[in-house]
């Protein structure tokens, strides 16, 4: 790794300014290992140096928040002495080169973040982005990523209950793979990633250390196109090992003898140990010679920066070493003391008697410089946003457009995906994938939690502030439609190179929008992940700030799904149809345009709509609830029919051009079905909440019919099911 250049730090991604800072922190020149350690810890991936100041603007507090950002995962209270830990994380760049293992280890990593907190993982979700499916490369990535997620999640026995998949050419060479994990814990079992208590042992547990993934941290922070040739060693996952590790760690936490615990993710042993010391305002001294290794001849540098999976760092109480070993041995795992907590604040690494590195722990974490990159709206946004969408030609055949929309991979059924996931393990899945949000019961209580991940990145591209607000609102709407009260969010902010002002502008605006929506909807941000540099040969992916949201179902017997239930039920639209086509799937598909502004969102209206819907479900007035999103009103209605395997007859009186009425994606709209007896009560409640109410039709028959003054849509349910369910399997099988 020696290099001849005069400024070795530059090759490691550090600037002259940063190098001088390192010298100041150390009071001397860093040695080779130290320089590499700084390079890894100060990489964008580990340090968040360019996003930190922006992220500070998120609302992070609320009575429900037990643990906000800064730990391995956020934690929210759900009453009864119980809490939910949850977090989403990206594994984009490894998935681009080895999609199966990249996705699998992404799942493994996020599961560790959850059980590190003392929580038992109870559900997984994922948010995926690929290029258009007509490209063989995208099909390969899609196939392998899904199978990698399934391979890991199924094997470890945590059900994958939800997610989303979008297809867009900007992701062709840079797919996004974001995985979310949700865990359940008792308040008293909450564990943290701190190292404190002078003399307490520092133990490494789990898998042996190999040479995999070295340089992973700086790798994921670089432009992919440039590094494809470097062929970094990607890691392979071992879900079996992780299952054992999970059981052992949870058993250990129950003993009450754990001071702190942290998984080893990016920058492996280095980041876990210095972050734990830094959080505990302490130091750590450890000997890399004691680390169990898988390969021979590994140098301290390699041991420190290896990203071998399925390893954890544990700081138990002094004297508990044997107890820890006993628990891990029972599960067939090693637990080895490699060092001690000290009080000098120094992260000191030895190899036998030799000191290899000696750095103030905070120097690697808190003292990393923070930047405010330039943010500048690109002027092309003017042209894109102001594109005239008023004079577009109307389609001739609305039936055909609806069928084509249902067959768009982004809209079509994702059964092909989630049937590869074991979504039932743990026997808690009350609402499986396929409805608005997944619902998991909490055994031993009458409660449940509802889970969803959402982001329409086209909206964010067209207007990052609005787009991000919509992502939060849609997530909340999905929860509400299942009967859950939104509690809090986690996020994964996937963007291009932040050094480009136009990219950073998108980033800043998206964070602002997300924050404002979270404030209004009372869903604080409890943690998240930033993934920058999602670019190939200078082309960035669409800005994709994914929102993962958790909600609480107070009475699990009152959950709601999106399927129409019985012949004769009335169909009601809550909210208002608008003449908006900007950013819609229809516009992209039929007119080949990705332009205009995303649909307008009014947070106050949104909130009223959600409160109303929650009340209607809690009172058992709503028999089904479905939010309107991609594909608009017609697609939403079709989905209710498909799920319920029953037809509907709709009459619309709005004076809006048919394309916008049927396919526009105007916000803050929910379709419910109800019996006639409850109609008046629903109307009254809608009036109380100031939510527009319209009775639009009746469930029944085996035909989807939508009549307006200027158009008719009429399709047999059989045909729409065929198109909706067949689209992805057909594409994947040829």
């Amino acid at each position: 790794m020696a290099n001849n250049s005069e400024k070795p730090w530059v090759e490691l991604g550090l600037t002259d300014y940063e190098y001088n800072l390192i010298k100041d922190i150390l009071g001397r020149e860093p040695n080779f290992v130290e320089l590499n350690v700084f390079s890894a810890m100060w990489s964008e991936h580990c340090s968040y140096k360019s996003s930190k100041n922006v992220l500070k603007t998120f609302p992070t507090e609320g009575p429900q928040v037990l643990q906000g950002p800064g730990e391995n995962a956020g934690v929210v209270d759900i009453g009864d002495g119980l809490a939910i830990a949850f977090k989403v994380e990206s594994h984009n760049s490894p998935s681009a080169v080895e999609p199966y293992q990249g996705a699998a280890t992404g799942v493994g990593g996020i599961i560790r973040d959850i059980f590190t907190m003392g929580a038992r993982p109870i559900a997984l979700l994922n948010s995926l982005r690929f290029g258009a499916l007509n490209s063989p490369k995208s099909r390969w990535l899609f196939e392998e990523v899904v199978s990698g997620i399934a391979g890991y999640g199924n094997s470890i026995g945590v059900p994958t209950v939800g997610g989303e998949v979008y297809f867009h050419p900007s992701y062709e060479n840079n797919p996004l793979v974001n995985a979310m994990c949700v865990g359940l814990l008792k308040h008293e079992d909450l564990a943290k990633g701190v190292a404190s208590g002078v003399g307490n042992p520092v133990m490494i547990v789990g898998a042996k250390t190999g040479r995999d993934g070295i340089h992973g941290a700086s790798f994921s922070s670089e432009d992919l196109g440039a590094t494809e040739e470097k062929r970094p060693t990607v890691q392979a996952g071992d879900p079996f090992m992780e299952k054992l590790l999970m059981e052992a760690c949870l058993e250990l936490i129950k003993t009450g003898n754990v001071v702190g615990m942290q998984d080893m993710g990016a920058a492996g042993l280095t980041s876990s140990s210095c972050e734990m010391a830094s959080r505990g305002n302490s130091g750590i001294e450890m000997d890399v010679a004691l680390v169990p290794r898988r390969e021979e001849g590994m140098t301290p540098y390699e041991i420190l920066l290896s990203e071998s999976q399925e390893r954890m760092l544990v700081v138990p109480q002094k004297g508990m070493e044997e107890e820890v070993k006993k628990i891990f041995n029972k599960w067939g795992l090693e637990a080895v003391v490699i060092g001690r907590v000290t009080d000098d604040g120094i992260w000191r690494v030895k190899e036998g008697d030799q000191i290899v590195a000696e750095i103030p722990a905070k120097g690697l974490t808190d003292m990393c410089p923070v930047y405010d990159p330039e943010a500048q709206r690109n002027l092309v946004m003017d042209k894109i946003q102001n594109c005239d969408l008023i004079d577009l030609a109307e389609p001739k055949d609305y039936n055909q457009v609806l069928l084509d929309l249902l067959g768009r991979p982004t809209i079509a059924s994702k059964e092909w995906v989630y049937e590869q996931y074991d979504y039932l393990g743990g026997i808690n899945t009350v609402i499986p994938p396929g409805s608005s949000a997944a619902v998991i019961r909490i055994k031993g209580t009458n409660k449940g939690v509802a889970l969803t991940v959402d982001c329409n990145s086209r909206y964010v591209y067209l207007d990052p502030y609005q787009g991000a607000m919509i992502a939060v609102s849609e997530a909340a709407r999905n929860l509400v439609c299942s009967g859950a009260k939104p509690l809090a969010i986690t996020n994964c902010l996937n963007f291009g190179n932040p050094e480009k002002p136009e990219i950073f502008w998108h980033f800043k605006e998206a964070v602002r929008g997300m924050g404002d929506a979270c404030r209004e909807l009372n869903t604080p941000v409890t943690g998240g992940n930033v993934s920058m540099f999602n670019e190939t040969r200078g082309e960035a992916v669409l800005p994709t700030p994914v929102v993962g949201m958790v909600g609480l179902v107070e009475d699990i017997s009152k959950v709601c799904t999106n399927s129409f239930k019985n012949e004769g039920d009335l169909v009601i639209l809550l909210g208002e149809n608008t003449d908006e086509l900007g950013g819609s799937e229809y516009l992209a598909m039929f007119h080949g345009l990705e332009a205009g502004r995303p649909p307008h969102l009014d947070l106050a209206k949104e909130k009223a709509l959600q409160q109303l819907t929650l009340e209607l479900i809690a009172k058992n007035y709503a028999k089904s609830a479905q939010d309107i999103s991609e594909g608009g009103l017609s697609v939403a209605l079709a989905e209710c029919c498909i799920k319920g395997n029953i037809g509907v007859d709709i009459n619309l009186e709005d004076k809006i051009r048919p394309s916008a009425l049927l396919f526009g994606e105007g916000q803050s709209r929910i379709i419910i079905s109800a019996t006639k007896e409850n109609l008046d009560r629903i109307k009254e409640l809608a009036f109380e909440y100031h939510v527009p109410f319209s009775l639009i039709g009746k469930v029944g028959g085996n035909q989807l019919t939508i009549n307006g003054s200027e158009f008719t849509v009429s399709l047999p349910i059989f045909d729409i099911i065929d198109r909706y369910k067949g689209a992805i399997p057909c594409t994947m099988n040829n």
Partner: protein
Amino acid sequence: MRFGVVVFPGTSGEADCYHVLKEVMGSEVDYIWHQSIKFEKEYDCIILPGGFSHGDYLRAGSIAHFAPIMEQVKKFAQNGGLVLGIGNGFQILTEAGLLPGAFLRNKDLKFICKEVYVRVENNETPFTNNYEQGQVINIPIAHGEGSYFCDEETLEELRANNQIVLRYSSSTGEIKENYNPNGSIDNIASIINKEGNVLGMMPHPERCAEKILGNDLGKYFFTSIVKWLDGGANHGK
């Protein structure tokens, strides 16, 4: 009445079986660790649960079948005790030779999790006597290597002895290849040994034993066992 649920490293279905037996059925139930060399208590029925024992590396169930506890399970079965293998448990039973045949990867090479229909082909077993002969039930499957295989001779024998207990079918009970989710021979979803006390099934009855989960038709496998045992059958002691 006491059930024992065996825990192998890597299985995860044990907690689901435990929950159903204890909370839904109100039975006594213990976990039994794979390294135990004897049963600590007297059991009426032993369950090998689903999951990925030893990661299902090499072949599903291949490493688990050597666990020390399997000697006890074999002895228990030889003495007529009831043994139920679900999913991975079924795979372990075939690897251990307690049931004939073997498992191949699903025909379309993907893991499949979904609800399917099966027809009860034999309701005179300790595990199915609460169903009607020919009854069609919907029940979830979740497996990647669920394609049951055996040679012609064995198949003839299974048929002749009425050892095929469940077959994948349509909702109306039609047995055809297109209702077969994984390519298993003769649409087999479950078989029993000749003696009638060891049953393996790929579908997961413990996952559909409660109304709140949308389907409780699977519960009757467990009520069948209880009924059988209450009838004073040999408990394998």
